[in-house]
């Protein structure tokens, strides 16, 4: 085992002065293994969704608390949770899944304001923030705060009410969690924490729409596949660095690709994996 690892990780005369992992056969084998793992995970996801799938810990109440914390820090008054806006947000999320789009306006031309008007919220100001693929409420709010436009929306003193929808579904074939934030105000002057009228029918409808989708699988497929990919990249970067250092010290001449090029490439791939696996906002 020790000899195998030494052969696999370090360059010496037994492996033609090139770590075995960096031999063409090993790289090819790794590619096949990674592709197989992708298909295998997909198969498990499809047949055993209770074991492997997209899970999340995002709730309207957490989003409201975090949003109001940020508003208080910036000197804006806290927002009240509006069931009408939550219902509008839920309809918007359902519309995105049914019409299969990821945008503020639907392919048939429906703007976010149509959803707000449809639930009877007579807005003077209105705004919408969208997010998808996040695991926690904290990550969603952090991502919105990091984007100037979303941040401006969240902290705007024009709004007094907010509604959220958190729905799981398939978008362009991708299983994901959509988070819709609808912001609004029915007055020109901003409110200071007053409660928005709650329609009982709207409240129960929101709960039914949201709760029915909150099932958690045993393993989060995105985190699992991301960690697997990151581990493989780290192993390759480590072996490339070790190989480069040993060969430089022993002053061996080889006709192979430059390790430094591959290290730079894999660092980029590492960053790409982190970006791909995190959520998106618009």
């Amino acid at each position: 085992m020790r000899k195998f690892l030494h052969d696999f990780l370090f360059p010496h005369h037994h492996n033609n002065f090139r770590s075995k992992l960096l031999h063409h056969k090993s790289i090819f084998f790794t590619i096949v293994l990674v592709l197989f793992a992708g298909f295998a995970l997909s198969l498990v996801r499809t047949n055993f969704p209770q074991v492997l799938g997209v899970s999340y810990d995002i709730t309207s109440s957490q989003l409201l608390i975090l949003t109001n914390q940020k508003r208080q820090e910036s000197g804006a008054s806290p927002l009240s949770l509006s069931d009408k806006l939550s219902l509008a947000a839920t309809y918007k999320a359902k519309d995105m899944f049914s019409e299969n789009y990821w945008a503020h306006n639907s392919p048939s031309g429906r703007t976010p304001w149509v959803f707000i008007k449809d639930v009877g919220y007579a807005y003077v100001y209105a705004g919408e923030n969208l997010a998808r693929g996040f695991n926690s409420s904290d990550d969603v709010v952090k991502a919105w705060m990091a984007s100037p436009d979303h941040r401006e929306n969240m902290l705007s003193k024009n709004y007094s009410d907010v509604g959220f929808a958190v729905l799981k579904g398939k978008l362009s074939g991708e299983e994901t969690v959509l988070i819709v934030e609808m912001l609004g105000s029915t007055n020109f002057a901003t409110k200071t924490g007053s409660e928005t009228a709650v329609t009982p029918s709207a409240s129960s409808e929101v709960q039914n729409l949201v709760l029915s989708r909150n099932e958690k699988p045993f393993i989060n497929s995105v985190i699992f596949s991301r960690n697997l990919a990151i581990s493989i990249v780290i192993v390759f970067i480590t072996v490339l660095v070790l190989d480069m250092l040993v060969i430089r010290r022993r002053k061996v001449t080889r006709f192979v690709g430059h390790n430094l090029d591959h290290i730079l490439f894999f660092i980029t791939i590492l960053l790409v994996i982190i970006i791909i696996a995190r959520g998106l906002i618009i």
Partner: protein
Amino acid sequence: MAKLEKHTGHYLSLITILGVGFAILFFSSDRSFQMLSLTLTVFFYVLWGIIHHYLNHDLTAKIVVEYSLMGALGEALVFLILKGGFGL
């Protein structure tokens, strides 16, 4: 380090290729556009490797295969997340 100093221009162009590819991917909120950006980055990385070794007078078929395999591995790792993680 000596290699870096000797090929400063080459490495600056490589960093530009990888940096631009990553920046496009970072600022995109569309999955298919992200994948297109990654594929182009990998393509230009392989092309850069071939040109770099050609100018260095040590280009061989094995080196072309090596850069292609490294590029393919990068794509496969992202595929693992998209297929296994998101179910695309």
